[in-house]
């Protein structure tokens, strides 16, 4: 199998890697870079647990070949925190109790990050539509939506 050299920026850090053509970005993040915050749920693009941001947009890392991430800037849940300060989304999720088992949380927060990237003051409808690809099997949606709306208020210039 012919490995492919790629260069990616993950949470601001540059990585040069030789990946196999079938390797997904999700597997590279988890198994090579040990960034296990991003979760593998269904592996088929149905649950949203593997959501990360590429160039500020939400994408599914389970359906993204690592070779296709070459040259891109990737933000995962591990990159949200600024030094010792949690991101407003993380603060708001804790404050609103928007976490139950926690498995969907990294994907939820990264989908939320993309919503806040693209909307200055998102309405509840915009938040719900933006989360429509992320499943929470504990069904804690109400508090998650509340947390994102709260984070929008908490954030200064992002």
């Amino acid at each position, binding site marked *: 199998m012919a490995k492919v050299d790629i260069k990616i920026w993950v949470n601001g850090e540059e990585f040069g890697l030789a990946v196999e*053509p079938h390797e997904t970005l999700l597997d590279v993040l988890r198994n090579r870079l040990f960034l296990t915050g991003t979760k593998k749920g269904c592996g088929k693009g149905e649950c949203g647990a593997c959501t990360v941001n590429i160039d500020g947009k*939400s994408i599914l890392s389970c359906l993204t070949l690592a*070779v*296709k991430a070459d040259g891109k800037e990737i933000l995962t849940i591990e990159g949200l925190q600024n030094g010792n300060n949690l991101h407003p989304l993380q603060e708001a999720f804790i404050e609103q109790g928007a976490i139950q088992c926690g498995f969907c949380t990294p994907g939820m927060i990264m989908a939320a990050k993309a919503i806040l990237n693209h909307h200055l003051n998102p309405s509840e409808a915009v938040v719900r539509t*933006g989360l429509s*690809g992320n499943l929470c099997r504990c069904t804690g949606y109400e508090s998650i939506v509340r947390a994102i709306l709260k984070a929008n208020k908490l954030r200064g210039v992002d």
Partner: protein
Amino acid sequence: MDGFFRPNRYYRPKNIREATQLLSTFGERARIIAGGTDLLVEEPSEIDSIIDLENLNLSFIRKNKEGIDIGATTTINLIDSSPVFSMSPYHVLKEAAQEMATPAIRNMGTIGGNICNASPAADLSVALMVLDTNLKISGFNGTRILPIGDFFKDVNKTSLIDDELLVALHIPLYSGSDVASFLKLKHHQTSIDIAIVNVAVRLSFSEKICEEARIALGAVAKTPIHIKKAETILGGMEINAALIENAAYLAAQESSPIDDVRASASYRKKMVAVLVKRALENCMKGRDEWLKST
């Protein structure tokens, strides 16, 4: 991925010539990747090479005096957010884009991929069919233009031959008085749900007369289909409620759905009539609003 999807080689050609050359060399052992949202779900085991269209500069939406050109790797979210598709009747494509999948998948999936995967239920396909879209297909030996209605051959089968790839789509110019509507029936469980039935309709008018009607249905045959009988009875007529009922009835007659996990064939047929009727009524509403505004 733990399946047997183990392509050995990955190529990122720099131009269309290089891409078609690769396709002609590897034939059926190669697969094109754009967004990857279908390929990585399917995980075809027989694939030896992946050809990535990323560097071909095929992500564009251009409006000019002949119509709209869309690059094959334009993502579904770019179509949704483009002002070009806010106008009638082109908004039918935006309506279809908004009904598709989830925000993250729409950031990845492309218009060309949605068509070339040739799902009988593809949302963009029916919208593109009623807009009489032409496809620009490039092969190693040249380029051809094909009406989208002739593109689909069977479930997941298109008329592309081994060394060909879809490069761009061309939607002809319409007047602001042309109206269109897209409707999708799905289980409202998750937003990734595939259509039980989807319908797109376009009506073009000259004064009070409907000069041309287009009705396309998805998920009720092996490919997305035009409902020619219904289109014919509407063309050249002044549209009224009885004619709409008749067209909806003919559409249901002409559809040939199957029973599957999403719905039964008989339910689908009934829903075809309901959706065609509603889509035609939406068009007439749009037409009335346009008349009032001029």
